[in-house]
């Protein structure tokens, strides 16, 4: 069996409006079509090797309105975004997109693995998602490669002004500098 915890569900945990919130978001429109057939889980490459990650369970939790439980679930972050579930769902539910929506909502609450924050910080600093070593950049000439296109961090920050998740990153970056 799946999911994060097997605690009995309390009525107070259920947010009946949660599903409507998801239905209004791009990618979540078809959430209620899911009839729990399990095609997503049985075809999921990650579920084959994880004892806990089950896309069907995540979808069910979202439908039921177990908002806090699903947003705090560690397994939410295991999805490899291969989109096999989305392509094979007989009901046309964009399963991977629903999982992405849930992750986005979790991230807004500050729940996200550190790797994403690191990559966001790199993009804001250089345009690239990784810190590319100077040595690699210099080596390009000897490898017969043209210079690496430069990022435009100032401009990137400007276009991303007002985006929720990135507000946190900037604040954290500022703290590090102190």
């Amino acid at each position: 069996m799946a999911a994060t915890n097997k605690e009995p569900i309390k009525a107070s945990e259920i947010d009946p409006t949660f599903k409507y919130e998801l239905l209004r978001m791009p990618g979540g429109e078809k959430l209620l079509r899911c009839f729990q057939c399990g095609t997503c889980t049985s075809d999921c490459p990650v579920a084959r090797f994880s004892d806990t990650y089950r896309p069907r369970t995540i979808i069910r939790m979202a439908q039921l309105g177990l908002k806090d439980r699903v947003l705090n679930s560690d397994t939410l972050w295991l999805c490899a975004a291969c989109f096999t579930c989305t392509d094979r769902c007989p009901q046309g539910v964009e399963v991977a997109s629903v999982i992405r929506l849930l992750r986005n909502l979790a991230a807004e609450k500050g729940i996200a693995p550190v790797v994403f924050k690191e990559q966001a910080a790199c993009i804001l600093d250089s345009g690239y998602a990784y810190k590319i070593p100077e040595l690699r950049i210099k080596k390009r000439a000897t490898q017969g490669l043209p210079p690496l296109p430069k990022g435009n961090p100032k401009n990137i920050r400007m276009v991303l002004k007002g985006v929720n998740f990135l507000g946190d990153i900037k604040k954290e970056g500022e703290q590090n500098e102190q």
Partner: protein
Amino acid sequence: MSNKYLIFLGCAVPYRVSSYEISARKVLQKLGVELVEMPEFNCCGLPLDPVSHETMLILAARNLALAEQQNLNILTLCPGCAGTLKKVNTILKKDKTLRGQINGHLKESALEFKGTAETKHILQVLMEDVGLEKIKKSVVKPLTMLEVAEHVGCHLLRPKDYIGFDDPEDPQTLKKLIEATGAKCLDYINETECCGAPSVGVSDKVALQLAQDKLIHVKMAGAQALITICPFCHVMFDTNELRIERMFSETYGIPILHYPQLLGLAMGMTPEELAFNELRVDTSRILKLLSEGIN
């Protein structure tokens, strides 16, 4: 002018998979595909989609708008970049409200998304713009002694409603391109499964198990090498092969080549020119086979 593209390197290729870039540029040049460098770069946005869809849309749209300004289409080496740029192009062309919102952000750097630039992954350019016939004609040393397997990965093909290239359940493009070099492309179990790369950093164990599963089946099929077309898949199988072998106390010894390296060999380029020295898994066995076979 159809074979002139703005090359979008992405982040993973310059970060640690230069062998892919070196071999791709050599092969494309020889096939008459002209590449123009991006005037400036930012990540396609895919790595941040899990935490902020809005950020992904803005970053991708910014790149598309830059390409539109250059009046050129984009060629990518990374299927993740290609998939993201294609998907965002489709979404923003359809959804005018969303396009307005995103353009509101882009206005801050005097850019506007119009939806006039298309994106293609190198494999799609080779298949659709260069064509199998021209590729076959460019082969001077057919690799007929080689039996390989292919791993096309996820993002070149999925989600199919947004990407619309090849068949995700039975992809043929890479197979045909491999066979154009004279090499035989073998089938194996779980051929279309994920390499595991997106789970690295969240659960390395699950990620490496996925990659191991593929290596087991590739070996079982008797392939002498595995051919990839994605920097992330390549890192999973090549950079991590030794780590996987140690973790599971197994040996695979399967060389992992970028498709342009395989094609380059068939076009008569040397392993040195194609940056074979940057690969982690020993390729000497297949290179010996080739030199003996070619005479």
